[in-house]
């Protein structure tokens, strides 16, 4: 099933990219001032989500340091996503988030909702130009639409070069407005997941289900501010420091995620829809180095992020491009990421304890570390075109943050590793 879904996505993306690439031949010299980058990515988690993403970007040179950037992204996701509910030593039944239909989860298996699928299209555009000697400015926007989600945003940046262009200071601002309209509406905080067999007929079930829903849709506004400093250290070493601030206000609960309420023996009594705060302020410090070392190119970066959900993270990323002969290169890549849990993360709730103000059992905001190991192989073709292939293994390891699992929960897996393979083909022309 997974393979078939992946094959369908691959075929659709391949067809789309052929159509896009085909236009180059017809365009001829009219597009000489344009540089195109295209890529197809396939992402496949073992027994969970499969995704395919195709990107085409175009950069037009209008002379006098003026550039227009255009982008088109199409992605499709399908497969099974963890609901947040805990595994049990017996079969569990779940109602789909829309309220229509149900599915069973085998004993000892972490509940996954396997009806998850979506297709997204994103368009973006930006214009950049110099404003005065040593000043550059850019402005742009994006529009992203998927079945139950719409995001619209504007961004701008201003950069100033100093010290014979060895130092650049920049300021970026971004604002986006997102609207989420999940199928079946938005569940009220801590609304119980109802099961159809507990009701006498469809009408009484539907009436009860409707009372668990608050509204059809909700919104989120995000303001991003980014301060950057780029410094040339010497002929072979370039460094960048960024401080970024991201303030989000609005609906940040995942409308599809549940939290299990268990008794003293760890048996699930009820599954409730999660509830997250409607404000989040994130800060990050990012430090990147580009180094030329004996003909090879090293890209090493570190990011420290912290926010008012008490989630902090460290990310180290290294890519080392090694030339092989005249036109080929190989680039080993490694990334390590470690995060602490958000303060309201709980893998389950105890029936005996009062409901907290906020709760989420989504492992993605729990204590976790991940690593990515991969390699990219590329070759320069005639006329400056470039073809590359990248393959990587991504593994997430959620961890227990010191919580004792009562009764039957001690016998089931609560923190399951997720392994994904990513394969990417890129062509620049």
């Amino acid at each position: 099933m997974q393979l078939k879904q992946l094959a369908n996505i691959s075929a659709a993306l391949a067809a789309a990219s052929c159509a896009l690439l085909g236009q180059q031949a017809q365009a001829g010299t009219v597009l000489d001032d344009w540089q195109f980058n295209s890529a197809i990515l396939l992402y496949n988690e073992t027994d969970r989500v499969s995704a395919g993403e195709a990107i085409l970007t175009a950069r037009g040179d209008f002379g006098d340091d003026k550039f227009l950037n255009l982008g088109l992204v199409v992605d499709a996701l399908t497969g099974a996503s963890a609901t947040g509910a805990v595994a049990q030593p017996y079969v569990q039944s779940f109602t789909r988030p829309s309220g229509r239909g149900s599915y069973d989860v085998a004993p000892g298996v972490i509940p996954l909702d396997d009806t998850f699928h979506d297709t997204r299209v994103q368009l973006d555009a930006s214009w950049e130009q110099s404003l005065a000697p040593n000043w550059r400015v850019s402005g742009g926007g994006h529009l992203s639409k998927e079945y139950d989600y719409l995001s619209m945003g504007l961004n701008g940046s201003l950069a100033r070069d100093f010290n014979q262009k060895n130092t650049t200071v920049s300021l970026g601002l971004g604002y986006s407005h997102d609207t989420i309209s999940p199928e079946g509406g938005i569940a009220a905080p801590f609304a119980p997941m109802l099961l159809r067999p507990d009701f006498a007929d469809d009408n009484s079930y539907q009436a009860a289900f409707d009372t668990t829903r608050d509204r059809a849709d909700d919104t989120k506004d995000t303001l991003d501010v980014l301060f950057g400093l780029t410094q040339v250290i010497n002929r072979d070493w370039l460094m960048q420091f960024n401080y970024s601030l991201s303030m989000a206000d609005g609906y940040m609960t995942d409308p599809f995620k549940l939290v299990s309420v268990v008794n003293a023996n760890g048996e699930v009594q009820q599954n409730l829809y999660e509830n997250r705060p409607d404000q989040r302020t994130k800060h990050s410090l990012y430090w990147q180095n580009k180094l030329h070392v004996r003909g090879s190119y090293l890209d090493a970066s570190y990011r420290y992020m912290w926010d008012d959900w008490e989630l902090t993270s460290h990310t180290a990323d290294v890519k080392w491009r090694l030339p092989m002969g005249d036109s080929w290169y190989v680039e080993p890549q490694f990334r390590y990421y470690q995060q602490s849990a958000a303060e309201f993360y709980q893998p389950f709730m105890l029936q005996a304890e009062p409901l907290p103000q906020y709760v989420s059992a989504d492992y993605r905001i729990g204590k976790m570390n991940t690593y990515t190991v991969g390699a990219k192989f590329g070759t320069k073709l005639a006329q400056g075109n470039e073809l590359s292939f990248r393959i990587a293994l991504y593994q997430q390891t959620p961890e227990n943050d010191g919580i004792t699992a009562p009764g039957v929960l001690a016998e089931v897996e609560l923190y399951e590793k997720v392994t994904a393979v990513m394969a990417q083909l890129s062509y620049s022309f």
Partner: protein
Amino acid sequence: MKLKKILSAGVISVLLSQLSACSSLGVKPWERDVLAKDEMALNSAPLDNRLDDHIYFSKEGSSGGRSFAGGGCGCN
């Protein structure tokens, strides 16, 4: 914890101010041969970075740093 954050922010600010004030850093315009190469650009593989940012945004609790953290999808 708060003190630790303020301290680290302070140390980094001092480092940054030292870097920008130090006149021995940098190169003359005619020494930019290596820095001018595509491989030395900070965002030398923009599509790779964009795809990675999208994956990690939807799979981890952090985002941004290199560029805006915004997102723009209801990723699962």
